């Protein structure tokens, strides 16, 4: 994400007028909790789109790339890997689309949104990792989109609430009375 202007910000006696308060004083945490599901689903949605892209790039690559005298797409391992990834991605996409429907209806709850973020970002990283492997050494070269996808995907499990925080939210709901 080298074109992202992500920054550190410092506030030292910064004066802002009181009318810049958003909503009510002391409600900030509640507002954050209210808005986070949408943010988390967005991350899940982006994870799916990125995964589809990298999987397709990898399918194109393995059909071109030859080793031991034939395209590596002809090897059973390649096909098995692709089959696994595509199966997982297909099923996750259905879940993500259903979550999007729920969000539009105003019915996406925090726990389900957390599942969308956890599932989407973890699957994206697994898919990208396997796709790097199928690219061999070229998968580690910055000129190849899969290498960038590898670098860019990793933060998906961190920002917007880490996978561990997602699991906490989901886990707490499971054991709640």
């Amino acid at each position: 994400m080298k074109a992202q202007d992500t920054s550190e910000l410092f506030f030292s006696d910064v004066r802002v007028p009181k009318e810049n308060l958003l909503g009510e004083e002391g409600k900030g945490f509640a507002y954050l909790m209210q808005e986070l599901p949408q943010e988390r689903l967005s991350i899940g949605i982006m994870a799916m789109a990125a995964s589809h892209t990298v999987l397709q790039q990898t399918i194109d690559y393995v059909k071109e790339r030859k080793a031991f005298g034939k395209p590596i797409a002809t090897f059973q391992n390649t096909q098995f890997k692709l089959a696994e990834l595509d199966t997982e991605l297909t099923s996750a996409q259905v879940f993500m689309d259903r979550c999007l429907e729920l969000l539009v209806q105003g019915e996406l709850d925090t726990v389900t949104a957390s599942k969308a973020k956890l599932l989407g970002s973890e699957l994206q990283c697994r898919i990208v990792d396997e796709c790097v492997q199928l690219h061999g050494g070229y998968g580690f070269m910055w000129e190849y989109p899969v290498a960038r996808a590898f670098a860019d995907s990793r933060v998906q499990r961190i920002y917007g609430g880490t996978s561990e925080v997602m699991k906490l939210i989901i886990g707490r709901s499971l054991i709640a009375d």
Partner: protein
Amino acid sequence: MIPRTVFEEEHEMFRSSVRRFLEEEVMPYHAQWEKDGQVDRELWRKAGAQGYLVPQAPEIYGGAEADFRYNAVIDEEVSRSGCTGLGWGVHSDIVVPYLMNYGSTAQKERYIAACVRGDIVTAIAMTEPGTGSDLQGIRTTAIADGDDYVINGSKTFITNGQHADLIVVVCKTDPGAGAAGTSLIL
């Protein structure tokens, strides 16, 4: 093959236009922006002119009052393009919704239309160097002083941090009160 049923024909038409915009206005320049460490500020206004920023904003503020599936289409196409420099998702899906949902009428009138046009780029300052996942533990303070708040603290990993004209800062207006002392300040 399981066909996707979540989108209607209008969303797919919108998708084609977003894709074309990314191919013409973003992809050819993205490598340079990676070197620059930020996208061209003007791109935000171009995207705003096309309706790609905050499509769900109310019509009175220049938005299309679109459903969130339009946001999803934009997210998917940006993600698909691999152009990771675009911070539109944070702006449209995360920050401006705070203004829409919790802002006063005066705040909405002052900011939302400009956010839709891309004249204002937004960011949210949540994470701090010393507190990552522990949102209740944030230490940036906003202490009331006359008609002002005085803000002290530091924030990190702020997407759109350089271009941002408007930042929602998560801070403690009552540092002793934990989560209940947390407020959002523009």
